[in-house]
């Protein structure tokens, strides 16, 4: 009995649930972000490409060099099911460029690096190049008018297709007559004027060559106050493969001649008109 007690005492003395001998570290990888680079064909600056991760419903815009970083906002263990599994596309969107996408695989709430279009370091494998579909150029004459100017202003729009054919929606009154433009103050983008012709409507048009539109605007339709204004035509390129969730990000009316249209990322050359300044 004595032996048992002394043995028990010895055992309790040597028992431990912690030791300092093996102080190992672990490095669980956090793979919650994906980085990449986007280029726009025929452009020098790659700023403002809308980058959208479907499913997670998060987006970012590219910097001037085309770089972007997307991050899953939640701790994987807080995500539904302790970490979501799925295949999700990153979409790259500029309205008058071809829609681009890269595939990412998400396992247990984290990106799977080294799989699909993501490399081992969490970067999109190759630079994404978006093909330009259409050049949209606008001109206005006269481009400088006095406050007391009472004549008409002529707006010309030239669409040049960069691929074989492009379906677009424009605001048109009759064949090749532009039915509406936005006039936006350069000083304050909230100072927005819709200039539209009577009986004009949204029409689908196929652009397969260089095409010109014209619009004659009376002085009365232009802003009263002096200042510099951009003239932006309503030209919406059709993207049949664009996912509905991405479309919905810009509002239900973004494909119509509405304020929401201006929220779309686009690369256009606006015409500028100066009113009343000497």
């Amino acid at each position: 009995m004595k032996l048992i007690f002394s043995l028990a005492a010895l055992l309790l003395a040597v028992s431990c649930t912690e030791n300092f001998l093996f102080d190992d570290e672990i490095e669980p990888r956090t793979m919650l972000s994906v980085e990449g680079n986007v280029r726009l064909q025929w452009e020098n600056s790659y700023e403002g490409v809308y980058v959208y991760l479907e499913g997670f419903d998060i987006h970012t815009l590219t910097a001037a060099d085309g770089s972007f970083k997307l991050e899953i906002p939640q701790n994987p263990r807080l995500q539904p099911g302790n970490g979501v599994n799925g295949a999700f596309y990153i979409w790259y969107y500029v309205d008058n460029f071809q829609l681009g996408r890269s595939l990412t695989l998400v396992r247990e709430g984290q990106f799977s690096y080294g799989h699909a279009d993501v490399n081992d370091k969490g970067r999109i494998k190759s630079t994404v190049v978006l093909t330009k579909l259409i050049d949209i150029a606008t001109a206005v004459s006269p481009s400088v008018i006095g406050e007391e100017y009472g004549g008409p202003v002529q707006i010309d729009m030239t669409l040049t297709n960069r691929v074989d054919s492009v379906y677009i929606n424009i605001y048109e009154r009759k064949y090749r007559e532009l039915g509406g433009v936005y006039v936006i103050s350069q000083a304050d983008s909230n100072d927005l004027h819709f200039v539209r012709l009577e009986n004009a409507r949204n029409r689908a048009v196929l652009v397969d060559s260089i095409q010109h539109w014209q619009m004659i605007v009376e002085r009365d339709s232009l802003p009263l106050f002096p200042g510099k204004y951009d003239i932006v035509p309503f030209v919406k390129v059709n993207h049949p493969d664009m996912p509905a969730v991405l479309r919905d990000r810009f509002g239900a009316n973004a494909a119509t001649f509405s304020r929401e249209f201006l929220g779309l990322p686009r690369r256009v050359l606006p015409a500028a008109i100066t009113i009343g300044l000497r």
Partner: protein
Amino acid sequence: MSPEKPLRYRYFYRCFWALLCLLVPAGAQSLILEGLVINDQTGQPVAGASVYLENTTLGSSTDSSGHFMLRIGAATADSAVLIIQHIAYDTLKLILNEALTRYRFRLTPLVRPLEKIVVEVPRDRTLLANDLPAAVTIVEASEFEGRGYIDLGDLLRTEKSIQIEEDLSGRKSLSLRAGNPEDVVVFYNGLKMNSLYDNVFDLSLLNVEDMRQVEIIKGSNTALYGAEAFSGVINIVPRVRQDYTARFIQKIGSYRSGDWNLQLNYSPLQNLSLNFTVKDAAYKRILGNRTGFLENRSRYLSGNILYEIHPSENGNRGESINLMYMRVDSDHENNSFVESIGDENEIVALNYKRWSPLWQNMEISAARQTLNNNQALIDLSGTLDRRFANRRLSLNVQNRYRFSVVELISAYQFEDNRLNFSELRRGLDENPQGLEAADIYQQRHGAVVLARVNTALGEGPVSRARVDFSYRYDWIRNSERDVLERQGARSIFYEGEQQVNRWQAGTVKFSTNIGGRAKNLEYDFFMNGGSNIKFPTIFNQISQPSPYNPGVPEIVARLLPEKNRSLEVGLSLAQLFDAAAVVNEWKLEFSQFTNTYENKFRNYYIPGVPLAFYENVPNADIRGLEALWKLVFIRRIMTMEWGARYYDVSDRAAFPFKNAVSVTAALNAHYAGYRLQFKGFFESKRLGWLRDVRGDFVELRLPSYYNFDAHLSKWYTLGPIRLFASFSARNILNTRTVLEGIAIRDRRLYLGLGVEY
């Protein structure tokens, strides 16, 4: 001096003491009796036989290869009587003087063994002894006790037909034969452990030092213990009665792990045995750059009171009552953000066995189990508080009746389950939907009849034949009460009983088995098959049906039971040679199976929606081939084993991330109390299908992986005390394969020291 230092010195002293124990040489002048205990009829080694001297406390037992070593004091009289005893064999008594001249000791089986090799039905006191035969792998305590295994999941990691998933918190789930974790039923001492919520059991909650053996029953051929084990059963046989009085094992190892385990056995009366186990374990993983840590602690208590009202000579015809208690508390903390997970698991079980001439073998078990799991997580992106409280009351009545070659087993099982569930999600940018809290009640009844014809045909090419047939019927009723649903900005509480789901189904199984011997080649062939049914889990029932996808019209969400049909054929060949030969035995096992699923559930989540979706695949199947080659050589000192298997899964969204090929190789050697084990394993790429937003799938391939483990251990006998030391190195190749399951795949070292009285 920093306040931490004295503490550290204390640990150093403890470890120093422990090391000292390791180095103590075997003591006084004494005799060593070594031997091999074999089955007189088959020549197979007998594991777990007690070897002791009459009227003394001196004793030992045979290991899995039938070997024993007994140290005898020099003063022992030559006329002392050596006794070799095993529950399934006639007791062998012989004079010590005579025993010292021998190496082989032959035991005569009480009942002629009819099943062999692949169809190894564990015979004594185990759960599956009465069930239909199936491919079984038995892992005995001598292969893992005191070694570097932190829990059951860690131990079973290297089995070829098993795949273990671990998450960062240390929670481990097991899948068998390319099925999913919910297709495996885990039994502890005959009690089902799977969670009521999702039918999965966390293997990190079980103490390996408390186990006498772990039985891996592959295939879905268990009738007595439910129709839900589509891919198999893990049956844990705890140590209820041991031949030592006290045993203490201390392990230390990687990740600051420390683990001590104390077992006490006491028999105040000849027919009363008491058994008690306590274990305390912890490990702490420091995150890279010391940005935080992950800490796991667990405390384990278990006790058994076994009273043999009428002790029996052959283990069957007695009357006994056994009361068991088991409790595990485990905590995980991750301080890189605030996360804590706590589990409390408690079981109280009462088992009564009786033999009477009228009813023959009658067994009644009743148990109460609680399994509570709490998870709390606070992070910049929000907070989560999830609670599961499971309570299970179960009753099992079983009768086994035998006349001539026919055996008839009938059983009735009842379960009354309650799950209290809540999931509070706060501050998360998501669409609030689904169940926030509910009380869920479940009652199930199962009735089963199993008929068996078991014949011994004498010596010859066909010496044994066996046919089993079973029919089982299950009823289940689920109801939700006091439901709190997230609906937009507010939650809506529905009082009283809400949804009631009832299902019932019958299943049929058969098995045939023939075996025999031609010259010294022994063969065994089996074929079994049948149907299984699994009722939708609570998790399935509170999930949302997946929106219909016109692209795949055959996939529709149906809240109906999953069905499974299986067919398996197996063959094993073995040849035994003389003990003096270089090769003593070889054995080849081969089996092929097909599991066909109907109405297989597929669950998935969408980001921002805290609710699971389900859909059902009309048909999915898993086909597999398994092979094993075992070689025993050099006076049975060394054993080599090669295992390989191939599984083909038809639907990698329903059975995601299963590896197709796995190869294992093991070398075991034991000599003079030393035991050396090497285990190498390879698993091929894991393939899984990930769903995209449109409901199409993209395949993800996770890298293949290989590694090996080594274990060295030694038992010393020092008078009445036995000392044990072990060294384990796990995942010796520090591969850079990164996956979840960090503790399973990292290189780890463990030191184990034990003492037994």
